[in-house]
């Protein structure tokens, strides 16, 4: 899990990958690899060009849903097992969902967080 330790706190340090790593953080303790369309410099994802930005934004929303599904399943698995044994893992696990401000573009983290918080379970399979 991509986490870092700073000032006695565990902080998420996931990055966006488009083939190779970009400079863009996800704001959560997970690396994200998907068919995101990068900028020409290939250092970040493109949220400016109109048609590309729609694709990238919808992908980010889906990523938020997936993160939420992972969170729900992780919590379910932990509470069904012997919690004494797994308490030590709860701290870093939950730290991964801290939703720090993503850098350099904070909109990326906000899109993921938005869908994480407002997940609506329609019972349909995810598009991604």
């Amino acid at each position, binding site marked *: 899990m991509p986490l870092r330790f700073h000032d006695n*706190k565990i902080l998420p340090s996931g990055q966006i990958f488009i083939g190779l790593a970009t400079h863009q953080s996800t704001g959560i303790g997970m690396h994200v690899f998907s068919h995101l369309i990068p900028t020409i410099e290939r250092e970040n994802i493109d949220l400016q060009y109109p048609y590309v930005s729609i694709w990238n934004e919808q992908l980010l929303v889906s990523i938020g849903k997936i993160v939420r599904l992972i969170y*729900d399943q992780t919590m379910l698995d932990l*509470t069904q097992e012997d*919690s004494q044994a797994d*308490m030590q893992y*709860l701290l870093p696990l*939950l*730290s991964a969902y801290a939703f720090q401000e993503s850098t350099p573009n904070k909109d990326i983290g906000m899109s993921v967080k938005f869908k994480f918080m*407002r997940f609506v*379970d329609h019972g349909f399979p995810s598009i991604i």
Partner: protein
Amino acid sequence: MSSSKPILVPVRRFPSQNQLSLVPASEAFLSTSKYFETFLSLPIVPFHIGQTNFFNMLKRREQIRELNHEIVSSKIHESILRLEEIIALCRWLCSNENIDKRLIKEILSELYYRETQQSSIIQLEKVEFYDDLHGWSLPFPPNVLPSMIASHLSRDDLEKRLSLSRIPRRMLLDFYLHTSQQSLFEDEPTSRILLNFISEHWTQFHDADTKKMKEVLSKLKCIPTTHGMKVPSDSYLRSPNLSPDLPIITLNLSERSVGDEQISIEYPVKVKVLKAIGCRTIHVPTSHNCFSERSTTESDKDHSLENFIKDLLQQRKHMSDTDLHALRSTPCLTGS
């Protein structure tokens, strides 16, 4: 229009729960103290994970509530705590967490707990004192924190943080002499404990206390004897001058060895205390009959009478007021 699926968070619903449960964040509480989850039966996120930024984010978005002192106080008053929970509560009150004295007083104004799941509920009300009589197994007034709880806290904590004082012995005596508690004196095991308590603190009681004690105890069958529980005026301190057929007191009496060391015995009671509450040292009819039966001739009678009187004079300093009263009212000396 569908609504968002609630975020489920891991909580402990009650202190003894080992397994964590999942509840919607809106129903859970974030703890601001490591102690809350040790005594509150609320869905609380364990303290050490509640400090993560994930929960800070939920708190900022008002998706989870934080436990405050008002909620804690209100929940305590409506709960029946287990023994370990009330001890944990007291530890929290004594901790360095800047707890307002008014809050402490409010919490101590009304508490309910039980020692085990099967035992009865004990109510504490406006707690002002703590019990320092370690190992005391009898009921206490409701404003006293029992030693089974107080012994887990330091004296400093009890007196400075909780503002409690040692229980005054006179107050305890008044409590046990009250009508509602007098049955404790009539049960042998508890009577031994109570008489020992009275004996140990005899010098701390004022005249008014001892007078009240005498009045109450003289009417209760509170003395264990060889013939069961008897009132003090029907109970006799063991003596070679007494018939073994009499109800002889079976309490452990305080005695001193030649080296003036206290012999260690369970719940000892001082003889002077027993005499003060009316226990007897002589049985006039038996003594009188003894001297009458031994006298066959007139000179025998005079001799026996002389011995009887000498006997009485020797025992004079050991007699209780009840003995003297019996001596005055029982005809035993016939004139010529």
